[in-house]
């Protein structure tokens, strides 16, 4: 039982963070969001310099042969950066092939995905990286709404929830960091607003939510990696359980953290120029992907987890 990152995973997170700092600052995020597609330059850098698309693909199919835990590590950083990168869709396409593809399909498709090919993936009524995106509140993720809910195997869906939770945790982390920094800089009534106790307590609550969400997300990622690496009914049951916990917990937590980020920034958060609005909208999109809080709770009952 070990719910922590390895030394290598820490390093991976650091490498990705550095790359995102260089290639995906606020103006790059905004430029990509307005372009109507993901950030193609950034995605190329992530694939070529870190091999993020190849991480979950086995070596026999031109992949790196790491696990979904490594993918989750990268997603947490992508979430924190709010980067318009199609890693979630990419990893889900890989997952679907590994869990439910034929050997022929894997041979045909995995090498391309490992090299960074991006294709539409449907989750519920939402399509990730669609050919044509419908106007959504969030513009840093490309989504389209379709009429019928796609059919998706239970274990693939659970992997999706696990990976989405990594993006959710990253987004929360960003909200917390942004708000802490602002509250240290912003002076009102002759003091940094971060010295007002009411504000401190609200920030402390945010931290509690972020930390708890992170553990839940890491657990789900571990279970996803185990099951995708070597699927068994027991592993699938554990994956469904931990992914449901992560989705249920992180969705509520992110909604709270994003709203508090806006509220604690005050008027400045109400502006287009400030990144708080990007976070708010990203939070909203991620929570719709995972399913709003009451639907994630329905799932706990439907899956007979309790």
């Amino acid at each position, binding site marked *: 039982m070990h719910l922590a990152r390895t030394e290598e995973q820490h390093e991976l997170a650091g490498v990705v963070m550095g790359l995102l700092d260089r290639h995906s600052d606020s103006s790059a995020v905004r430029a990509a969001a307005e372009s109507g597609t993901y950030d193609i330059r950034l995605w190329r850098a992530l694939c070529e310099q870190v091999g993020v698309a190849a991480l979950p693909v086995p070596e026999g199919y031109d992949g790196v042969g790491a696990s979904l835990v490594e993918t989750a590590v990268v997603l947490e950083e992508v979430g924190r950066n709010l980067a318009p990168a199609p890693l979630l869709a990419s990893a889900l396409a890989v997952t679907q092939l590994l869990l439910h593809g034929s050997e022929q399909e894997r041979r045909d498709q995995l090498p391309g995905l490992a090299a960074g090919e991006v294709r539409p993936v449907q989750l519920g*009524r939402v399509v990730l990286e669609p050919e044509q995106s419908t106007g959504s509140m969030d513009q840093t993720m490309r989504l389209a709404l379709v009429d019928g809910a796609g059919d998706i195997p239970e274990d693939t869906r659970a992997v999706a929830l696990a990976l989405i939770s990594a993006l959710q945790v990253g987004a929360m982390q960003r909200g917390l960091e942004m708000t802490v920094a602002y509250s240290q800089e912003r002076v009102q009534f002759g*003091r940094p607003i971060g010295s007002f106790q009411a504000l401190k307590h609200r920030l402390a609550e945010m931290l509690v939510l972020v930390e708890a969400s992170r553990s839940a997300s890491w657990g789900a990622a571990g279970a996803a990696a185990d099951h995708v690496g070597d699927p068994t009914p027991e592993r699938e049951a554990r994956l469904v359980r931990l992914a449901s916990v992560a989705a249920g917990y992180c969705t509520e937590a992110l909604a709270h953290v994003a709203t508090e980020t*806006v*509220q604690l920034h*005050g*008027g400045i958060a109400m*502006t*287009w*120029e400030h990144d708080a609005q990007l976070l*708010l909208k990203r939070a909203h999109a991620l929570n719709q992907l995972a399913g709003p809080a009451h639907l994630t709770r329905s799932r706990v009952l439907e899956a007979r987890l309790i």
Partner: protein
Amino acid sequence: MNLDLSPDEIAFRDEARAWLAANVPAEPLPSMDTPEGFRAHQEWETTLADARWSVVSWPEAYHGRGASLVEWVIFEEEYYRAGAPGRVSQNGIFLLSPTLFEHGTKEQQDRWLPPMATGEQVWAQAWSEPEAGSDLAALRSRAERDDHRGGWVLNGQKTWSSRASYAHWGFGLFRSDPDSERHRGLTYFCFPLAAEGVTVRPIAQLDGEPGFAEIFLDDVFVPDVDVLGEPGQGWAVAMSTAGNERGLSLRSPGRFCATADRLVELWRRQGAPAELRDRVVDAWLGAEAYRLYTWGTVSRLVDGGQIGYSGSVNKVFWSDLDVAMHETALDLLAAEGEVRGPWVDGYLFSLSGPIYAGTNEVQRNVVAERILGLPREARG
């Protein structure tokens, strides 16, 4: 307790209801944060004014009906229930006009009130500054005396000015005594946004529309006739009507009751999911409770009481309620809530509720210190 309206009040309500039913545009107007929407809202104000519904509580001489406070609340309820457009002139008629009635000269009233009532002139507030948001008394924009020209010269920067990009006049406080600090030595000025030296820079808000603007003042001359109240008394002038009952401090419940009703409708349309039932009912309960609370405040005022600090209670109440209702709507919409639409727009707007017109943090301080008598905090 008397829960019934008087015959006169019923007649007033019925007249308003009938007029609104006949005149409220069938389609929502475009957003008032866009140029065409701003114009459409101005025209709506003119339509209102022509039928004397734009400023019902003002004297008849200024396009009003001399309506009582109770009638004003009735009108507001009817207005929102009818789904009528937002008020583009709200900063003028709710924030500035009470001060103008109390501290303005007859000449100022005659000059400014009529075009405000008809929507011909829209007023923008110039309160906040980049370093003076919650802490308004920290403002730095200054006014220098120009005896030669008989007026003042304004310099500085104001921000969060709603719709200043399209508005005609601004009003706000400036530091007229350079040696003064905090609340002292401020003067209340009105100035045309087209005046020489004024630059208005739009700020794109959450939804990308320029709902706010920054106002830069560079040697803007304001004649003495445009000073509101005594020079140096700006803080007192502004605060004397800051809690004015017909302004923002008694935000009329109609808007929230209407939102609650729309939310209930949405819930039914989505198949009345049991898991969201309590939140929907809560919204309705909250809006009804807010309505009763407002009536309680109105009754106290009618009995000769003061609104005092209960405007702060009001502010916390309605702004938190508004956010909660919109969050529930988005959860009801599920994936559809990701697509732009009236609930999404309403949600983004509701988030500004706890922030503007005195953040809820400041309001809670006021409640704790002024109503509950808890010790003040050192505030530098």
